[in-house]
């Protein structure tokens, strides 16, 4: 099954379910980035994969590196405001992705 490429996905959940600690039953459409960035890899990434497996150890290095571009938001929805269950308003920034890229 061909791995899905990096793309924007969405999930409907309550603010409490975001895991930020806010207690609110308001619902939000959480948009996030998921999927593969395989087609965006460079020679660098192949080299890093090799180095992480054996290369660094041979050179006595313990660096941790990413062996491929990450599927990440390239822009966020600016702000999201909601009323919590104690009738207090909160505004949080950059919690939902607007679009994604590798």
């Amino acid at each position, binding site marked *: 099954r061909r791995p899905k490429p990096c793309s924007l996905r969405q999930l409907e959940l309550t603010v409490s379910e975001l895991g930020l600690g806010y207690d609110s039953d308001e619902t939000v*459409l959480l948009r996030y980035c998921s999927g593969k960035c395989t087609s965006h890899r460079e020679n660098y990434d192949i080299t890093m994969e090799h180095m992480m497996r054996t290369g660094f150890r041979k050179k006595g290095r313990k660096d941790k590196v990413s062996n491929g571009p990450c599927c990440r938001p390239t822009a966020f929805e600016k702000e*999201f405001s909601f009323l919590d269950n104690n009738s207090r*308003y909160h505004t949080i920034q950059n919690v939902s992705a607007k679009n994604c890229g590798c």
Partner: protein
Amino acid sequence: GSPGSLGAGSGPGAQPEWVDCIQASDMCNQNPHCSSRYRVMRQCLVGKEKEAMLDNNRECQAALEVLLVSPLYDCRCKRSMKKELQCLQNYWTIHMGLTEGGGMDDTSPYEPVAPNRHHDAFRLASISSGMLTVAPKGFHCVDAERNCNPCLDAAKACNLNSSCKRQRSAYIATCSKEDPNKGEACSKKRCHKALRLFLDRVPPEFSHRLLFCPCQSVGCAERRRQTIVPDCSYKDKEKPNCLELRKVCRQDSLCRSRLADYLVNCWQSPQTERTCPNQDNHQACLASYARLIGTDMTPNYVDSSFSNWTISPWCTCKGSGNQEEECMNFLRYFTDNTCLRNAIQAFGYGIDNMQNKNESVPGPSATTKMGSDWSTATSEPPFVTIPKYPEPRDGGLAKTRGLPEDHSACLCANVWAVLPGLA
């Protein structure tokens, strides 16, 4: 013909589209005779002495008489039109000179709304009799186990619509942002503007649902009360006198216009059987109420009681001196308004499914309930009502005879008749 009947598109009989007051002002400016008077009129209204100027200054009087037969007299403004404020300012340039002093006789500068074409699914008498709100059919609970909270569902519906969510977050962020350097909780002016933008841009099916969701719990009612972020948009350190608040509102074209529109669409004097103007057009009432939010006269639920809630602007009638009755009468437009109460409850019952949006009725204004005090005032179609009289105290012998020819009486009067021998 009577003054005000001239002007583009308002010939007798014809029912043309309304001329808005920006077009009317342009038309006047293209006519030297009219534009010169228009300039004079604007001078008359500048500064504190405008009342004296209108009453005694010959030039102001002459200017007003010319403008009364110009398109500016019969022009109106569309709600949420582009350059709405300028349109309203043009309107008041003429109509400021026509209304009396403090009284609430303003006709609405906005295009009148079409009468309600179909009466409500079920008679509203059951509502207007103050029956407790029961779980509304229109607002079925989405999630049965969770206790029912239509206001939470309204927030959900908005949050799941990207435009509504963005607009809602914008006004909440503005209204709940502390203004540390000024030591104030927030900037009320910026908050009001953000609220007006939200209510202008977001369709009523989202905004009205947030404002008028029917509640069966304190939590829901508190969420409904919080919708306009009252700590910033509504509350203040002190409560002004309501007559003072009315005066401040009438000095601002936008507030004055929206208050007039609210009274025209939401206030029905007790004399008639209908509870709302425009043939019980609840939609028009709710829309004009919502558009008051974000002005000096911003109204809100005063607490989080869900069964018998009260709506009021942020003001008091304490300290009214001899004008307490006038002050209470003004406050009742909000706190004791059967039309508004029925409109909100009907919204909760899901009756008003937005079928008659704010279509405007063609032709110059026909409904001036408040009665503009000048000659061509008209009243609504004959108000037919069977007067609601309390039962006579000890059972009268003879009931009143025949239908009162004036079809209505607003006085509550007890009547009973006694045979001459027994008197």
